[in-house]
């Protein structure tokens, strides 16, 4: 009977180490108190019906000791947990980005090539994988116990989490945030593959019509985005060339990195962060696009990253103006 799940990611050993450390400290106190209670219980058993105990009212040195020592031990637990958590929340630069969408009651994942999976997720071993996740409806949570990771999947904005699989195999993933009737069925399997196998799997099942860049480009025209966002910067809206991951100068003077969350917000609530020098004329696409369509548009904008940035009318701020 196993007492802990398999260790299949970079986080598993550190989370388990925290578990062992905190268990050891707590076990020490639990055993000490239990032994003391049981010992006193029998040792100071009432000997005669009218006997009273020795009136001891307290001891300041003891009180200070058991205020300070547990506080210091608690600080070590806090610090250990903080280190792992900050690492988990700050994803490295060189990640393999996979989009994950949760909806009642299934998971869709989309590989960088556009390959889509349902209730399955294939990842290469040893690569840093970042999941960029959103929900179509209620709050879900993508959790992989063997990796010791989980993160809420929210409607209305992206949450990301990352991990590095360390062992090929098949691992359960679950929805961990209660989401309605079939919450318990909203799970599947992560398949961790050797890099070569992963590449073969990707090319073996990939096809052009699944490519999100192509789908995004089509949408970009369908939704008439291209009538204002002209590539040469001469339209009513800034050019999107080179925008992705660049710095954007906003009307209020601040700058922001054009990441997935920014692009998503600019589609759904364009007036929230207006690019300097432009009027807030873009309509909101809230409720008009599915999460998958937003992903496709984002993928298309991402593909424009390498396109030439016009001298004026660019969304991205000129290099000097950071």
């Amino acid at each position: 009977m196993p007492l802990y799940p398999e260790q299949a990611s970079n986080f598993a050993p550190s989370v388990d180490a925290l578990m062992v450390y905190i268990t050891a400290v707590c076990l020490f106190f639990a055993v000490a108190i239990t032994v003391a209670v049981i010992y006193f219980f029998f040792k100071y058993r009432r000997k005669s019906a009218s006997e009273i105990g020795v009136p001891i009212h307290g001891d300041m040195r003891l009180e200070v000791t058991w205020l300070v020592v547990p506080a210091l031990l608690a600080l070590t637990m806090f610090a250990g947990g903080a280190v792992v958590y900050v690492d988990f929340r700050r994803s490295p630069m060189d990640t393999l980005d996979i989009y994950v969408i949760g909806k009642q009651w299934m998971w869709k994942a989309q590989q960088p090539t556009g390959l889509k999976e349902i209730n399955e997720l294939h990842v290469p071993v040893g690569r840093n994988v970042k999941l960029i996740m959103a929900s179509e409806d209620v709050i879900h949570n993508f959790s992989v116990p063997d990796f010791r990771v989980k993160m809420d999947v929210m409607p209305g904005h992206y949450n990301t989490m990352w991990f590095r699989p360390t062992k090929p195999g098949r691992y359960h993933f679950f929805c961990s945030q209660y989401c309605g009737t079939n919450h318990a069925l909203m799970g599947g399997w992560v398949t961790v593959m050797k890099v070569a196998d992963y590449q073969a799997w990707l090319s073996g099942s990939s096809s052009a019509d699944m490519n999100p860049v192509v789908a995004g480009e089509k949408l970009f025209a369908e939704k008439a985005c291209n009538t204002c966002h002209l590539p040469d910067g001469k339209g009513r809206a800034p050019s999107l060339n080179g925008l992705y991951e660049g710095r954007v100068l906003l009307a209020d003077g601040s700058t922001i990195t054009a990441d997935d969350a920014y692009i998503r917000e600019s589609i759904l609530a364009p007036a929230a962060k207006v690019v300097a020098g432009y009027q807030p004329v873009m309509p909101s696409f809230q409720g008009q696009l599915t999460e998958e369509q937003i992903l496709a548009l984002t993928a298309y904008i991402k593909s424009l990253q390498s396109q030439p940035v016009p001298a004026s009318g660019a969304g991205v701020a000129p290099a000097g103006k950071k």
Partner: protein
Amino acid sequence: MSSTPSTTPGNQLPREHYLNATYGIRSWLLTTDHKRIALLYLASVTFFFFIGGAFATMIRIHLLTPSGYLVTPETYNKLFTMHGVAMIFFFLIPSIPAVLGNFLIPLMIGAKDLAFPKINLLSWYIYLVGGSFVLYSFSTGGLDTGWTFYTPLSSVYSNSAVTPAVIGVFINGFSSILTGLNFIVTIHTMRAPGMTWFRLPLFVWAHYATSIIFILGTPVIAITLLLAGLERMFHLGFFNPVLGGDPILFQHLFWFYSHPAVYIMILPAMGVISEIIPTFARKPIFGYTFIAGSSIAIAVIGFFVWAHHMFLTGQSAYAALTFSLLSYLVAIPSAVKVFNWTSTLFKGSISYDTPMLYALGFIGLFLVGGLTGLFLACLGLDIHIHDTYFVVAHFHYIMVGGAVMGYVGGLHFWWPKITGRLYPEFLARIAAVTLFIGFNLTFFPQFILGYLGMPRRYHSYPPEFQVFNVMSTAGASILALGYLLPMIYLVWSMRYGQVAGRNPWPATGLEWQTDSPPLTENFDVTPEVTWEAYDFENRPDLGLDVKGAPTLAPAHGDD
């Protein structure tokens, strides 16, 4: 004050007391006597405990097999939701304050009643109205949002009877607010001569701290649920992102109350334990001021830890760090209490009476519940155990192992005062041990399930989790027996139990200086307090062996 020797149980109940002062249904439904209102609450919270317990039984039976044994997924989701709502809002939160607190606070401070007797009765009626709405929800479609009512599931997507349930919990909140207000005013203004703040029983300190949370926290949950209800009924966009709302905002508001609400449940139980331990160890409690102060510290710091329920919502990592640190901070006053209770046993004169068994059981279970809170407050570890059965086990150790053990232990301790009669001691000890064993068998396996990764609120699960689920269900059947037993013999003892007398244990509090059951006015004459809390040494009226007490050596005791 009273110099009547009070330790020998008489054969007769006092001729006149609060139970026989007036007769008839009207005399109960329109009573303003805090003791009778406490009994009205006792009946109603027991009713909700049965409802919540029935749901729990069905949950445990259902989880015997991986695919789910008993009910459909919809029904299972309703079972755990209604179990939570009934137990938390209508049993755990009112249990100790509204039953034992109501009965005892005026008696303990030497007052005739609470400061606002009619408002006290009003609180009970508000509770009934709120409870009726919730029962209406349960019986017309049920409720499947989880007791946490997370949006947008509750405000948009759920097809169950959310609106009446939300209205019921909203209304019930006013009952808590009024009870808290009543307690605070009573404790400030109605203490008997000589009953200084630092002579107050720690039970009263615990209820003072609880009342602060009632007053400051409850309005927030009331408004939050109202907003969720408005979003559901009228599509106002507070929490639904499609309407421009923010689902995380709901969680902040919800936990701003619902985390302190955990302390509403556990603080009064800690108060009960702080009464039982010195009484049955027959010595002053160790570190009185530290136990009293820790209650206030818990109530205050408890308001600043709420977002530790939200480490994985995507909230800012800086916020997570802050709330993790504060969560560790709130653990310290709880630890202080445990150390002081344990030290009180040292060189005591310890008896094995039933309330003491409950108190020691409480220490054991609260220890596990409290210490596993340190696991969950640890940011890195919480990534893995958040929203798993580890959490379920942790809060049941606090709420059932802690709060319910405290409540049942307190009922036994003050039963002679409430009814004038003793419960059957032997049966009661068996029940206490049964509860302790059954509880651990039910909930300890769930820690392991959680670490293995089983998420909470699952109507079916992968087969590798079955062994621990079966263990848990087996334990639950023992636990159920442990609850039924006291239910039966306590009712039996109301008529057939041995007459207790004023102070059967004996204990030092003012409540034991009056008749059992007390007069409607509580005391013949206003008592005057000339002793410190839990002082056996200077209390010749208790009829105990106080000669030479300061140097009493436990070694000579083979007489």
